[in-house]
């Protein structure tokens, strides 16, 4: 179902980005998330955590994710969804590299092979 939802998300984003600016798409995107966020808030009856560092990283995550969304909608405005969706799905390339550099996490052989294939894929798709 996650596969289905995200696949449809990419398709709807392409149609919307053809007629709306990236900023307009992001505004609508955020409003579209409200029902599920409210549902999650209603279900989690826990006290909201306020660990300063945790909250700061979470807020930064939200801001950077929003900027990523705007760039994604702008890309869809200019190009084909059939190429942009696979290229942007390669974001673990950056996550894995940063986790290795910043958190000193080990890159497993599968991830290493994936990184090489991702770089080659981006090169081929940019031709």
């Amino acid at each position, binding site marked *: 179902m996650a596969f289905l*939802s995200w696949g*449809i998300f990419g398709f*709807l984003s392409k149609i919307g980005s053809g007629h709306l600016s990236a900023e307009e798409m992001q505004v609508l995107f955020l409003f579209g998330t409200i029902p599920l966020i409210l549902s999650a808030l209603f279900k989690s009856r826990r006290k909201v*955590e306020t660990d300063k560092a945790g909250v700061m990283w979470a807020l930064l995550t939200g801001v950077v994710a929003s900027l990523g969304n705007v*760039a994604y909608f702008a890309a869809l405005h200019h190009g084909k969804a059939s190429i942009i969706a696979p290229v942007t799905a390669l974001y673990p390339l950056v996550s894995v590299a940063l986790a290795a550099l910043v958190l000193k996490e080990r890159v497993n052989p599968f991830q290493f*092979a*994936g990184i090489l294939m991702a770089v080659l894929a981006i090169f081929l798709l940019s031709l």
Partner: protein
Amino acid sequence: MPAWLGFSLLALAAWGVVGLTQKLTTNRISADGAIIWCTVGSWLLMPWFYSRAQFSKVAILYIVIGLGAGFTARLGEWFLFACMKSGAKASIAVPLTSTYPCLTLLLAITFLAERLTAIQWTGIVLALAAAALMSYEPELAVNRNG
């Protein structure tokens, strides 16, 4: 560099950074707390985005489509969390769901008549395999009981 590629790489970089900051977040607070505060963070730039929007010129259909994009994106996350809470292995679920562009590709080719060259098809197959491989963590595949 074509505009689509530049923006795609920006999105890829931003979402890649999110992968790291999410980890730093959940090292300090629970997943539920992270979702709530990340949502607050994603709304911080709303005034700036809104100031640049001109909805009066937009057909209602595209407004509904934009809302649908947000809804389906969050619904996908919800399904992934629900799937893992129900006992699915992250090592299987995450790589499997990372191939979601297959469906976007299929829909774009079917309904938007997008056409691809042989080189682009090769790149797409490599990209999908790469996304699944990079999300795979063998240590997570070990059964929780042993």
